[in-house]
């Protein structure tokens, strides 16, 4: 449960969201990620560390370099968080549509 809360704290930060978007397009090394930001390299490293700890990013050792991948499963879990709310309205509106398709004006 603690981990779950951490995931949402992780994505609450705009820089970390930008990192996730960037890495989602292709797996990258820490240096390549940092090159996309004006932020100091240690700050970016810190963000990468948090994202890795929350399992939103995965590390892969490639020789001397570490490559970061997006953890698709974890990202989906985050998206799923508001899915029940969306589903509630979708069901409601599906029903509205069905009812109104059968609706015949009284006059």
């Amino acid at each position, binding site marked *: 449960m603690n981990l779950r809360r951490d995931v949402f704290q992780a*994505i*609450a930060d705009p820089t970390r*969201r930008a990192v996730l978007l960037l890495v989602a397009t292709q797996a990258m090394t820490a240096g390549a990620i940092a090159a996309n930001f004006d932020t100091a390299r240690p700050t970016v490293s810190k963000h990468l560390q948090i994202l890795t700890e929350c399992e939103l990013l995965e590390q892969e050792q490639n020789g001397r370099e570490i490559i970061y991948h997006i953890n698709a499963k974890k990202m989906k879990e985050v998206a799923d*968080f*508001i*899915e*029940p*709310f*969306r*589903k*509630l*309205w*979708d*069901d*409601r*509106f*599906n*029903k*509205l*549509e069905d*009812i*109104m*398709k059968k*609706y015949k004006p009284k006059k």
Partner: protein
Amino acid sequence: MERKTKVTAEDGKHDLVITREFDLPVELLFKAHVEPELFEQWMSHEYGTTKVLQLENKKHGSWGFETVDAKGNVLYSAGGVFHEFVPEQKITRTFESANTPFDVQLEFLEFEKITDDTSRLNMHIVFKSVALRDQLLKMPFAAGLNMAHNRLQEVVSKVK
């Protein structure tokens, strides 16, 4: 699965937007929101029946409904006031759930014609705070967990 209804809720903001396109003329989409017997039908579900208490479709008119279970217990009730009422175009209203920690929210409903047979509803909901919005967003998620838990308890108690 088709994803017809979209929910947009940006981090740190105290509002959200629900958008949906309907295979219905805008007149019928609007009617479903203003005719009590139609509203009652689409707002009822397997756990409860929705009853409109009042629906004064005009500027500064009030509205209210409640949902009761099979035994007649009130599960949920909500109400508010219309601030703007433009047929087949726009409804601006306050929305308050009774007996909940949620403060009143402001809702802007825009009804839009796409073609003669299709339409779009845009619901912009403004909350008092970011925390309240997030709490409300998480409700169905929490309810889902609760339901799973209750079902589990039911099964377990039968096993005993």
